[in-house]
């Protein structure tokens, strides 16, 4: 039924302790919250009650995962290859570049006052298409075509999104 990844017991073992630590941190945070007795709060209306219980549940589930992965010898971390192989490095680089571009656009360009949304979108879409399509286009001798396609994609996207959201549906853009 599933198409999910296979996860090693070692990965689960490490993740389990992260979950347990997180659950514990939530419990500590909840415990340290003001009980608001001066405002008439009782134990069962205290702000930290529900987060505390949720933290406890996450801690217990984390420990359960640690136990399960330990039974599958997940504690044997010595065999883990920490340096990724070349194929994995390519994937990590691709995802990393995308993340960088996404953060630069959504939180950088768009968030800054003075840069119109349409311009930020044009720069982002054009830049993205160029970065990820450039090598293939250049190898095929289509560098100019690739550049024009990227510019067209950027221009069309910024125009259509601005028109549809802002002008037709009256939705405020960043």
């Amino acid at each position, binding site marked *: 039924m599933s198409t999910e990844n296979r996860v090693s017991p070692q990965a689960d073992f490490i993740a389990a302790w992260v979950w347990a630590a997180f659950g514990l941190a939530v419990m500590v945070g909840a415990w340290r919250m003001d009980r*608001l007795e001066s405002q008439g*709060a009782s134990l069962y209306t205290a702000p930290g009650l529900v987060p505390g219980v949720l933290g406890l549940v996450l801690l217990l*589930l984390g420990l359960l995962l640690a136990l*399960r992965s330990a039974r599958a010898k997940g504690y044997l971390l010595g065999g883990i290859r920490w340096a990724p192989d070349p194929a994995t490095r390519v994937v990590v680089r691709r995802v990393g570049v995308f993340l960088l571009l996404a953060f630069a656009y959504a939180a950088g360009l768009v968030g800054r006052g003075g840069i119109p949304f349409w311009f930020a979108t044009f720069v982002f879409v054009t830049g993205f298409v160029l970065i990820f399509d450039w090598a293939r286009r250049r190898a095929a001798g289509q560098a100019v075509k690739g550049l024009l396609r990227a510019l067209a*994609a950027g221009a069309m*996207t910024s125009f259509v999104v601005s028109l549809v959201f802002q002008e037709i*549906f009256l939705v*405020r853009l*960043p």
Partner: protein
Amino acid sequence: MFSGLVAFAHSIWSFVTPESLFYVFGSTLVGLIIGALPGLTATMGLALMTTLTLKLESSQALLVLICTYVGAIYGGSRSAILLNIPGTPASAASCLDGYALARQGHAGRAMGIATSGSVLGTLIGMFFLVLFTPVLGELALKFGAFEFFWLAVFGVVISGTLTGDDPLKGWMAGFLGLFVASIGQEAIYAFDRFTFGSRDLAGGIALVPALVGAFGFAELLSVMKAQQAPVKINPFDSVIPKIADVLQHWKTILRSGCIGTFIGVVPGVGEDVAAWSSYAAAKRASKEPEMFGKGSIDGLMAAETGDNACVPGAIIPVLTLAIPGSAPAAVLMAAMLIHGVQPGPMIMVQSPQFVYDVVAMMLFATIGILFYGLTLTKLMVRVLQVPQTMMVPIILVLCTVGSFAIAGRLFDVWVMLGFGLLGFLLRQGNYPMAPLVLGIVLGDLLEKSLRRGLVLSDGSLVPFFTRPISLVIWVGIALIIALRFDAVSKLFRRRPLTTP
């Protein structure tokens, strides 16, 4: 019954206007494209359309969203059949036999089967929506704080159990979602929890940006990780559904419609489980189970009927309990609240006409998918050939706009990015997203119900365990959890007969 028919006819008539019909066909087409394109999920599509419809009148906005929802679940079958890539998780089961049929030169017939299954599945689900909503609404009026608390827990536990491969990880995702919902000012004393001094966090984590992140941005990260090769689509014949295919497989259609609707009613489970469950049931009941996975008409019909029947099914608990039956239904519920519609037990008392309006919207959406299923195949093929390098940045732009536009806060864009990264990392570890989202939706209900219940019972936990409906629900939760342990499930397994 007669008054119900009159109300339904009135609802249908109210949508027969040029504006409404434009929205029906426009949004169904948008839904179809969203569903067909890998990298765009129905949940994300609905979240973006929620933004687009903010300024519309509530009935028009919900019409757009329901048509988008139905279109998206149906649209996933296009890429499943033509490319062996599910456009949405709901169409994963359709890949098995749909693509096999396409490889045998029957892509057109497969698309016709998907169209007829989806149309009939939605109609069966609509029938149950009309039948069960008043009944469940009556039952829900008996629910108090104690019952709603257990219902919220049940939603997270059942969602974690049935989605993905690993219930333990599903529950962890669900309880994480419940925790995320507790961030911000709590309801009674407006005390800041886990805000770390941030004014934005004091407002809490908004649902729509979190959904866009978990289902949109996370999906884009997965698409960039996988990097698909350019698609090649084989030519295909007529896509018009054959009446013989429908008549020959009527039992499969009815069975899958019922299964899909029932699974839709279960909180947070959704269309992919509905499709797989219908597929598995059809295989068990089939006289040719060995054909499944090799181009079985029965298999494809079951998957497509089941996943589309789940759509009306998922709306039943939204209307009666204000608990979503699936992730897209969670967005629909959020949209209802934004537009001033209050789903929940009082809906049959305060606005019963609204339920018939929803059924009428589904009917129009069904007509929309039938129309596009018969006419729009060549355009869909072109859409599927749009390169990833073009599609991904455009979708990210839409994710950014969609997250920002609800409240006009840049903080929500950060939420989208953060949940996208979190969702991507959780997926790498095989943690399902649906329980996380359901936890965020149900967290407020769980907390309010628990605190209200404790105040009513003066701190006693006894009513939580002894009131009749609460008893049924918590015993159900305990059984669901206990059955995951081998020692307990062995007790319920049938022992083979031994000959003397």
